[in-house]
């Protein structure tokens, strides 16, 4: 059998490299999982009969067993030592899998012995005490015999140095097998190709087999899915071990487990195949680097798999998306009637009766009961409303009454603000909520603020002048402004690098900007000067946003961590760590209790502000995510990435509920209309597209199976949902904003 021959060849070569101490490998494995020293891939003491080197291996193993007082194992091993290791291996690995339920990482289907196989980090002396209580001594022997991190000299040599020349053969073998299985399983099993390929390549590079690595890459990189092209390109540039050290993302990839979701049947097939063939190298790699989340049910189709895959670390484990998320909105506070005196003239007859009731009703939340899906009012401390805030809210409500109802037959008008003469330097834009100010962040490290309304921007008077004004007068807020400083725009200097993120505070007093210099700056819009520089990220900060209630803000950047700050603390309050690559987009949920971060590792994570835990991991994009938007009712989220698709997510269940195809380039701007009926998306392809979200979210059917497994079949209805495409004159759209009356504002830099 070819397998046996492979095995033999393997052994020949291993003899040569036996004694290499690949300490960093074991170190690496230490970092890998909670069970240190999982030389799972190694550990197969393939000792052909009578080879001197392999005798040594056996002796080492024996020693180890003796040391740990596993006498029965010793006997068994001695007895079987004369046989070829091949015969040993399959039963050993079988039982090892079945037996090591003590292994720290339990499979997704808890309790099922077979599923545990997928999670076996076969290793570790740490696991050994755990396996000791297991009844079958054979099991102990097996697990003891396989992982010898202490005797790593011999066996870790095997573990990482499965013969490099044979890697292509192993891979080819697997490829042939997968091509021969039934169609329904093939799609699922093909998921294995990519992580396997990457890990095998990285192992070759790590062990300094540069040539073999290059050949391996050339031979098989073309087979991978097209959406992994970027990663493969990065991989191809890493041909030496030193290259790997500099690349944090690849290191993380190597140490984290790539998650695959495979149905039980397909998994059985794979397992059986890999264990009856004696090239356990692949099996080792799978067990060490892959997390196979097994589910019961129909195997998924290629399209379903494609929809969810694409992220750097595979898909999300099912239990990653199981935590309860309070996606409801916080109740609006009651506004007292006396403040409405100003409305009297403006309101028409419908307005007058309203004044008698608390204004709260007009905001929509009529029920006094707590929405079960909404967080408690006091779950996170929020700033109380000041008088100016209450006035703002009243203005908001007045404007909201004049809001246009949008729909498929009533599309919004779009007003586009083009930044001229920006010379490709416009990197961030934001509008205030009432659409009175625009701020632009530029690559020359300036921040510029313009007034959209005819009212000019004024700075507050100096302290001396302020002491002269009449503080009791009604228009004191006007008097404090210095007329001499009135101008259409103001420039804010302070950063020392391009400004990548901008956000106005809801009360229009502050402006935040985040920059490549690693700081986030708070600017006052009364004096147009910088107030605070928040230092914490030491690397470019790609995005920042104020909370919808003010006071808190988040920032995310190159250091893969998103931080939650409060304006009056110079250090962050929360750190959200978990992404594998830069965080490119950060957004607050409308109730300010959750934060969504989109990253270059192609996942979106939802974090709980209260605890800092990651409550949702959403995969499916095939490129770094550059825009996120929450629907106004808090239930849904839209995300846009460099793969030109907009994906719609149901936050409560953690599922993808829609896919909007149509753009041809990165989507940098996403915004829901004020009532959530329309989603506007702006992209580098110089267009703004409007999508019908009511229809998109209506079509979602969630039965138990889909809710449990997350496999949703997405209808191909992008064309129906597309309500309109609006082209600009070579101006990429980088920001969108719906005014309170549902007029759509867009911004971008003219780029001829």
């Amino acid at each position, binding site marked *: 059998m070819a397998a046996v021959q492979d095995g033999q060849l393997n052994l020949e070569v291993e003899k040569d490299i036996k004694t290499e101490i690949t300490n960093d490998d074991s170190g690496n494995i230490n970092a890998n999982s909670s069970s240190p020293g999982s030389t799972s891939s190694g550990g197969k003491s393939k000792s052909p009969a009578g080879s001197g080197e392999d005798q040594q291996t056996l002796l080492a193993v024996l020693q180890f067993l003796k040391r740990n007082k596993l006498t029965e194992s010793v006997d068994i091993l001695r007895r079987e030592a004369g046989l070829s290791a091949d015969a040993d291996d399959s039963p050993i690995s079988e039982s090892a899998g079945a037996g090591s339920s003590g292994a720290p990482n339990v499979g997704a289907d808890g309790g099922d012995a077979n599923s545990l196989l997928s999670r076996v980090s076969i290793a570790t002396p740490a696991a050994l005490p755990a396996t000791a209580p297991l009844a079958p001594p054979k099991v102990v022997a097996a697990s003891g015999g396989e992982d010898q991190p202490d005797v790593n000299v011999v066996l870790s040599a095997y573990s990482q140095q499965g013969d490099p020349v044979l890697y292509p053969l192993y891979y080819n073998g697997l490829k042939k097998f997968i091509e021969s299985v039934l169609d329904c399983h093939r799609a699922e099993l093909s998921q294995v190709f990519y992580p396997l390929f990457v890990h095998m390549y990285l192992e070759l590079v790590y062990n300094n087999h540069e040539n073999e690595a290059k050949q391996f890459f050339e031979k098989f990189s073309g087979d991978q899915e097209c959406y992994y092209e970027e990663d493969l390109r990065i991989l191809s540039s890493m041909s030496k071990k030193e290259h790997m050290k500099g690349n944090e993302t690849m290191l993380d990839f190597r140490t984290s487990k790539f998650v695959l979701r495979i149905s039980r049947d397909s998994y059985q097939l794979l397992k059986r195949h890999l264990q009856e063939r004696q090239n356990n190298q692949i099996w080792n790699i799978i067990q060490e680097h892959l997390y196979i989340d097994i589910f019961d049910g129909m195997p998924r189709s290629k399209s379903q798999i494609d929809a969810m895959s694409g992220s750097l670390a595979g898909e999300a484990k099912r239990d990653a998306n199981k935590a309860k998320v309070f996606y409801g909105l916080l109740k609006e506070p009651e506004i007292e009637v006396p403040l409405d005196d100003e409305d009297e003239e403006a309101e028409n007859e419908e307005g007058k009766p309203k004044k008698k009731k608390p204004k709260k009703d007009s905001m929509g939340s009529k029920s006094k009961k707590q929405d079960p899906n909404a967080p408690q009012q006091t779950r996170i401390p929020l*700033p109380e409303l000041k008088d100016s805030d209450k006035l703002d809210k009243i203005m908001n409500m007045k404007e909201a009454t004049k809001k246009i109802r949008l729909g498929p037959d009533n599309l919004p008008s779009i007003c586009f603000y083009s930044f001229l003469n920006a010379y490709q330097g416009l990197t961030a834009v934001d509008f205030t909520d009432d659409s009175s100010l625009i701020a632009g962040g530029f690559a020359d490290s300036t921040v510029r603020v313009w007034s959209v309304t005819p009212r000019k921007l004024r700075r507050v008077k100096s302290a*001396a002048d302020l002491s002269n004004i009449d503080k009791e007068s009604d228009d004191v807020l006007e008097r404090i402004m210095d007329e001499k400083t009135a101008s259409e725009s103001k420039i804010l*200097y302070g950063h*020392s690098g391009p400004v990548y993120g901008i956000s106005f505070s809801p009360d229009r007093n502050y402006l935040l900007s985040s920059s490549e*210099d690693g700081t986030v700056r708070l600017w006052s819009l009364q004096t*147009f000067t*910088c107030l605070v520089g928040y230092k914490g990220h030491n690397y470019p900060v790609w995005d920042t946003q104020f909370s919808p209630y003010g006071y808190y803000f988040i920032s995310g950047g190159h250091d893969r*961590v998103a931080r939650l700050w409060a304006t009056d603390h*110079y250090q962050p309050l929360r750190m*959200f760590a978990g992404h594998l690559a830069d965080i490119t987009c950060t957004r607050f949920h409308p109730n300010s209790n959750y934060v969504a971060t989109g990253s270059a590792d192609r996942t979106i994570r939802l974090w709980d502000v209260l605890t800092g835990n990651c409550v949702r991991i959403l995969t499916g994009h095939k490129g770094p995510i550059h825009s996120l938007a929450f629907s106004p009712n808090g239930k849904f989220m839209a995300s846009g990435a460099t793969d030109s698709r907009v994906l719609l997510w149901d936050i409560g269940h953690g599922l993808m509920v829609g896919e909007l195809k149509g753009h041809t380039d990165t989507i940098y701007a996403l915004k829901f209309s004020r009532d959530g009926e329309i989603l506007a998306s702006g992209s580098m392809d110089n267009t703004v597209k409007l999508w019908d979200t009511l229809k998109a979210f209506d079509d979602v059917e969630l039965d138990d199976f889909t809710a449990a497994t997350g496999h949703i079949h997405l209808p191909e209805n992008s064309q129906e949902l597309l309500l309109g495409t609006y082209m600009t004159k070579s101006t990429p759209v980088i920001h969108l904003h719906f005014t309170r009356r549902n007029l759509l504002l867009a911004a971008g830099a003219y780029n001829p």
Partner: protein
Amino acid sequence: MRGKGANVKMASPKTVPKDAQVMIQILKDMGITEYEPRVINQMLEFTYRYVTTIIEDAKIYATHAKKNNVDADDIRLAIQSRMDQSFTSPPPRDFLLEVARQKNQTPLPLIKPYTGPRLPPDRYCLTAPNYRLKSIQKKMSLSAGRITVPRLSVGAVSSRSSTPTFGTPSVQSVTTKVGTPMSLSGQRFTVQIPSSQTAASKSSTPSTPTVQNVLINPSLIGSKNILITTNMVSQNSASESLKRKHEDDDDYDAL
């Protein structure tokens, strides 16, 4: 190099130096297909500077080790130390997870009501004046360095004097009774300090409390505090060698 055929003094467009050709090839290998032509020059300059720095460092290490020739170990050491200095990478994931776990354990602090603008303590803000005004008599003593209002002069933020936000010299205006002698010509601090008030100014500069009073004026609505100018103060506390520079700035101010 091709292009010998053409007897032109200028290099014909087809002649690209070998270095540039190599750089173009590198960019292609890394998958970068669209770039402006200046990028090649920038990359070449960077390469030259990097390599030169490494080799110089390696020479220093070699002489330190009393070797005659620079060998591979020296180069390796040079690369390593430069890597740790300039080309750092973000912290590893497990470290970040651990730090985040600790940070996230503390509960969110409660928000005190009605405290005006919510800003960090003053020493962490950039709202303090980083200038002081000089009197006409140029009798500046370096003891003025004491008044250095605590500034965060770490990092790029405050050391770039690129903040020409034009503020009122309200320091002075408060100590003087009326602000009128101060001519605010928009762009500059033309602070004419009448000599009668030199004493006041001199006393005001070393005395931090006066300055402080101006800073936090609770009657001001919002955060309309002292505004920032170029960073002179952080240099005040430096050594004599900066004195000259300081005086130059004085001259500027007095104009």
